[in-house]
């Protein structure tokens, strides 16, 4: 039996070594004094916050940086009003258009399709259904309605105001309206020169 004992020791040793690696736990740290932040970190859990949660919604009635007060309500009347009177404050420059295209590829194209015809990849895979084309006659979207829907969401589409800034939403509106024109076989609008800085920052 004695000649096996060394083998058993080796096995035990390797077992102990490998059992230290538990991939669901982080590794040891050596003197982690400066590893751990003293300040409150993003997404942290601290007792001074409501529900112990650092990630909170902005205080009601406060306006985030870069945004303007948006007075159109999240209702059918608000939608109609925004559709009728809200206009894009950004000029139709090439830069704004390109930025809008970039945002469109990230946030919209997966459902609305590259051309805005409502045939995105998720629709083709029948994961999400009922995505209308931008030239849908019943809806007859305008700059105001596009912004309003991105801001508040409509039906099963959610709000995108948490993922993009105010400026990006308006740049995206330019791009969406261009896609609508192209779907309706219209010419794309001429780009204008940027007069000073855009109104909205």
């Amino acid at each position, binding site marked *: 039996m004695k000649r096996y004992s060394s083998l058993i020791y080796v096995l035990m040793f390797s077992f102990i070594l490998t059992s230290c690696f538990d991939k*669901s736990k*982080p590794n040891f740290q050596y003197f982690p004094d400066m590893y751990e932040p003293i300040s409150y970190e993003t997404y942290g859990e601290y007792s001074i916050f409501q529900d112990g949660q650092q990630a909170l919604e902005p205080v009601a009635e406060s306006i985030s940086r870069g945004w303007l007060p948006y007075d159109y309500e999240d209702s059918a009347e608000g939608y109609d009003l925004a559709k009728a009177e809200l206009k894009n404050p950004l000029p139709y420059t090439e830069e704004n258009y390109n930025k809008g295209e970039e945002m469109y590829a990230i946030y919209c194209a997966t459902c609305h399709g590259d051309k805005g015809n409502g045939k995105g990849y998720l629709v083709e*895979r029948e994961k999400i*259904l009922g995505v209308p084309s931008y030239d849908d006659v019943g809806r007859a979207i305008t700059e105001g309605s596009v912004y309003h829907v991105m801001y508040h969401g409509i039906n099963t589409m959610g709000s995108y105001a948490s*993922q993009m800034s105010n400026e990006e939403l308006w740049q995206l509106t330019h791009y969406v309206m261009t896609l609508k024109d192209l779907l309706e076989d219209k010419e794309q609008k001429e780009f204008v020169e940027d007069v000073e800085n855009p109104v909205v920052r």
Partner: protein
Amino acid sequence: MKKVLFRPSKLKNFLLLFSIFFVLGLNAQEEAAEESGPKVIEAVPDADPAKGKELFNSLCAACHKPYKKAVGPALHGVSERRDLDWIQRWTVNSRELIDSGDSQAVAIYEEYNKQAMPAFPQLSKEDVNDIVAYVEQPKPEPKTSKKDDVEGAVAAGGGGASTEVILGILAFVFLMLLVVLVLVNKTLRRFAEANNVELYKKKEKSKPIWVAFAENQFLVLVSVVVVLLMLAYGGYGYLMLVGVDQGYEPVQPIHYSHKIHAGENEIECKYCHSSARKSKHSGIPSLNVCMNCHKQIAEVSEETGNEEYSKEFYDNEIQKLYDATGWDPDSQSYTGETKPVKWVRIHNLPDFAYFNHAQHVTVGQIECQTCHGPVEEMEVMYQHSSLTMGWCINCHRETNVRMDDNPYYEKIHEELSKKYGVDQLTAAEMGGLECGKCHY
């Protein structure tokens, strides 16, 4: 000392293949039995349900589901509740019908909080009939009953539990073999003894090998040095891993599969991690971003379920999301009772190192996968890179800075390329190795 992530064994692969064939074979049988074509709907006998499905999916499905209430009511059975003429008028322009004072129209308008259905003037009467024919098709029987039992059994056979069973059987067989060998050995020895056969020659008593070894001082010295060197090498490698979490794969409160979202459905990384574009953190998406899609997707498709994780498992994970957001799929509204999801952070730099996502993602245009690895193939997210300082520095030395289309840096690029006499500047040459860039 490198950690190797778990790879399924060959045995598991074999079982997987086996179970796939098994289930496929069953499916084929069932399909053969179900070949009977679409039913003709009494209310709209000449309509084409296939064309109706296309129209329904593109125009109606945003708010209606055939068999379940969504934003609007479930449409199955609508031809029994209303007459066809009414449906046609309502679909083409519901507002007109409400304003005309039609009692049914006003009632449904009131029931859905005065949220009018948009007009669809592009639909002809025939189109509406096609749609009705589609939604009036009887609800497809869930193929679960028989298949699920089998799948469940196969899954149990192909998944974790059965591997153990098979290993157990193997172990038992080996044990039996061992016992048999010992018995045979014993019997043979007895035979040998009985026949006076000498089994082992009596060895001369020689010096044990370790005594000989201990007497040779040179050999002892060399082997001690070798052992010490090996220990030092191993110990150094082990200690260098302290504080490095490469391969860290914690269990998350909701089993979120990057493979399904970013891989199979090709959703942009930045769709959810939108703050990576413009802030230090890449950001865990708040749950409203999940609900952008999952308002409509309450369960995964049949094909999404696999041997390792079943459809029921995934559906349950979506239910966890609904619990956290307080979304009630039956009434299609939020109850207001929310609770936080405590995701476990994986990538975590020490506090003394500064890293900015926006700088790398937006300005540098570096792919997420460069640092985070093949995320689109990860069923469970793990840390791909070591995130050590050496790893950062190495990339800064090798990566060229994108100089074109960046007027902000134009001048410094020009000056620096003149200074170093190169066309392309690496991040290191831009000052990417200076201590104060990351530690301050």
